[in-house]
C-alpha cells in the first residue's frame, strides 16, 4: 500500500473524478453557487485542504505544472506536503513560479503576480457558507441563498459600522458574484478580494469537510460588499517589503527579537524572490527600507 503505483493517477479513482468534474461544471455554470458534492476521505485531514486537493486531483492532467502555496508561501509545511502528494501520486511537474504554473492550489492567499487566461486557481475552503456565522443551520442558509435574502449580512455589516465606524472584517470578507450570490472568498485577507474581480484565470473553490464546490469563471464580476457611504477598503500597509522593497503587496509581520523588533516582508515568497532576482540582475543593490 505504500507503493504509489497501486493508486490511480492523482490518487482519486476516475469515477470519483467524474463526479467532481460534474460538480465543477455546475459550479462554473452558476458562479458563486455552492454545489454539494460527495467529498471523499483523503489521506490528509479534513480542514487541511482536502477540498482543494480533490478539485486539483480532478482537473490535473499529465502535462500540467502545479504550484501549491499556503499563506502565500511555497515553503510552508502544508504546501510542501500537498505538493509532494501530487508529485508522488500524479508524477506531474511542480513549480514555485506563479507564471509557470497551470494549476495553483492555495490556502489563504492569491498570488501577487497577475494570473492569466488558461491558469486555474484552486482555493482550499474551510467554511464555504458566508452566512454560517449569522445562521448555523444549512437548511436555513440554503433557503436564504435561494431567495437571495441577504438582509442578515447587510445588517451585520451595518452593525459593524454602527459599533466601530467601519466594517470589522479583515479576511473571508464576503463578496457578491455576478450580481447574484453572496460568496465566501475563503479566508484570504480582504486585501486579495479585488484580484478576484474580472480575473482572467478560472477560480475553483473546494470545501472537503463541508462537501461543497463553487467557482468563478474567468472574467466574472466580483464585488466586495459595502455601502455607498462606507466603500470597501482593502488593507493598506504604510511601508514596503524589507527584503525586496515592493510596495502595494501583502506583508507578513516577522518578530525579530523580544524587544519589540518587527520587520515586514512579502507574504508571497515567489514574488519576493523574483523581485530580488530582477534587482540583482539589473545591478541594483537590494532596496533598503528604513525601519
Amino acid at each position, binding site marked *: 500500500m505504500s507503493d504509489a503505483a497501486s493508486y490511480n493517477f492523482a490518487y482519486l479513482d476516475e*469515477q470519483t473524478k467524474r463526479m467532481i468534474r460534474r460538480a465543477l461544471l455546475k459550479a462554473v455554470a452558476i458562479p458563486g453557487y455552492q454545489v454539494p458534492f460527495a467529498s471523499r476521505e483523503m489521506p490528509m485531514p479534513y*480542514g487541511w485542504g482536502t477540498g482543494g486537493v480533490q478539485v486539483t486531483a480532478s482537473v490535473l492532467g499529465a502535462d500540467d505544472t502545479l504550484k501549491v502555496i*499556503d499563506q502565500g508561501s511555497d515553503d*510552508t509545511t502544508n504546501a510542501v506536503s500537498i505538493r509532494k502528494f501530487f508529485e508522488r501520486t500524479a508524477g506531474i511537474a511542480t513549480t514555485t513560479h506563479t507564471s509557470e504554473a497551470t494549476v495553483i492550489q492555495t*490556502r489563504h492567499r492569491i498570488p501577487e503576480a497577475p494570473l492569466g487566461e488558461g491558469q486555474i486557481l484552486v482555493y482550499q475552503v474551510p467554511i464555504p457558507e458566508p452566512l454560517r456565522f449569522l445562521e448555523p443551520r*444549512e437548511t436555513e442558509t440554503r433557503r436564504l441563498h435561494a431567495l437571495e435574502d441577504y438582509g442578515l449580512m447587510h445588517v451585520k455589516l451595518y452593525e459593524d459600522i454602527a459599533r466601530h465606524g467601519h466594517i470589522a472584517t479583515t479576511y473571508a470578507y464576503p463578496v457578491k458574484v455576478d450580481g447574484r450570490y453572496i460568496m465566501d472568498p475563503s479566508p484570504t485577507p480582504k*486585501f486579495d478580494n479585488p484580484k478576484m474581480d474580472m480575473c482572467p484565470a478560472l477560480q475553483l473553490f473546494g470545501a472537503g469537510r463541508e*462537501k461543497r464546490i463553487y467557482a468563478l469563471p474567468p472574467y466574472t464580476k466580483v464585488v466586495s460588499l459595502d455601502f455607498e457611504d462606507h466603500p470597501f477598503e482593502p488593507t493598506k500597509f504604510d511601508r514596503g517589503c524589507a*527584503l525586496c522593497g515592493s510596495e502595494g503587496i501583502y506583508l*507578513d509581520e516577522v518578530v525579530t527579537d523580544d524587544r519589540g523588533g518587527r520587520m515586514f516582508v512579502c507574504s508571497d515568497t515567489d514574488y519576493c524572490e523574483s523581485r530580488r532576482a530582477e534587482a540583482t540582475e539589473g545591478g541594483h543593490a537590494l532596496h533598503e527600507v528604513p525601519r
Partner: protein
Amino acid sequence: MYVAVKGGEAAIAAAHTLLAKERRGDPAVPELTTDQIREQLALAVDRVMSEGSLYDRDLAPLAIKQARGDLIEAIFLVRAYRSTLPRFGYAQPIDTSAMSIRRRISATFKDLPGGQVLGPTFDYTHRLLDDSLNEVAAEPTAPARRPIADDANAPHVADLLGEQGLIEPNPQATDDAPVADLTRDPLAFPAERDLRLQSLARGDEGLLLALGYSTQRGYGRTHPFAGEIRMGSVEVHLAPEELGFEVPLGTIVVTECEMVNQFKGSAESPPQFTRGYGLTFGHSERKSMSMALVDRALRTRELGEEVVAPAQDEEFVLSHVDNVQATGFVEHLKLPHYVDFQAELQLVRQMRREWEEANRKEAAE
C-alpha cells in the same frame, strides 16, 4: 537579518523519521505484531473497523500499529484507504435473526426463546487490576459450552412484542428502493432514517455515548429499555446483476441493539412502544446502545414530537458526529494562519488607536 523561511521540506522529513522512531519505542522491547493487535486488542480493532467503515481484520490492526494506538488516527488511515476502493455494488441486507449468536441478552424479559447468552463480557467482572497479566500467563481455559440444538431459534425481542401490536412495526424495505449512502452523496437535510443510521454507524463512539447519555438525563427523554443486544456472526450476500442470484461473500461479526422506547400514541396510532436501532461491526455494545438511543432521539420529527434537545436535532448531530471530520478541523488550527492574523493585527491596532483618540477627546471635553 531575517530571510524568508525555508526548509519546511527538510523539517517534515525529519519529523517523520522521528515519528517512526517514537512509534517503535525502546528497541530492546520486541516489536508489536499486527497479529497480536488483531488477537489481543480485538475491541480496538472492532472500533476502528466500525468507525473506519471497513470490515478488514488485517488493515485495522495495521492502522492501529501505524497510529501508535491513537484510534481516531487509525480510523482516519482506514477511511483514507477505503476511499480509494472501487464500489462493486451493495450487499443484501444482513439477516441478524439468523445470527450465529455469541452473546444475546434482553433487559425486558427474564427468559425468552433462544435464552439469555452472556458470552464474553466485562459485565459482572470486578474492575480490579489483574497483575498476573504482567507476566506471560498460562493459556486461559475455554469454559464448558452447552451444546446448541440445530433448531435453536432466537427471534428478535421486538418481533415478539410486534406480534401483539405492542411495538410499532419496522418499516418494510422495498427491493428496488435506493438506500441513502453518504459516502457517495453529500449529506443533505432533512435526513431520512437510513442516512441517519449510516451516519451514526460511522460516528464517533464518544459523541454518541454523550448524546445517548444526555437523553437519559432529561435532554430529550425517550424512556428506553434494552429490548435486546445480540452479538455474533452473520453471512453477507451479494446479488451481482449479471448473475441474478445471491452469492455469499463471507461472515462478519456484528453487535446489534434494539431499544424499546415509550410512546404515548397519537390521533392516528394507538399507544405502543417505539424503536431505536444500533448496529456496529465487531463487538461494541457501548457504541451500538448509544447509537440506538440517539437513533430514537433523532426520530422526534418523524413521530411528531417537539425538538428541544441536542440529541434530537439531526443537523446538530449529523454535522458533528464524524470524528475524522471533527479531528481534522479542530487540529487544522495548528496550520499557519499568518496572513489572516496579520489582517486582524492591523485591525486591532487601528481600533485601539481609534479608542485612544476617542478617550483623549472625551477627557479634553
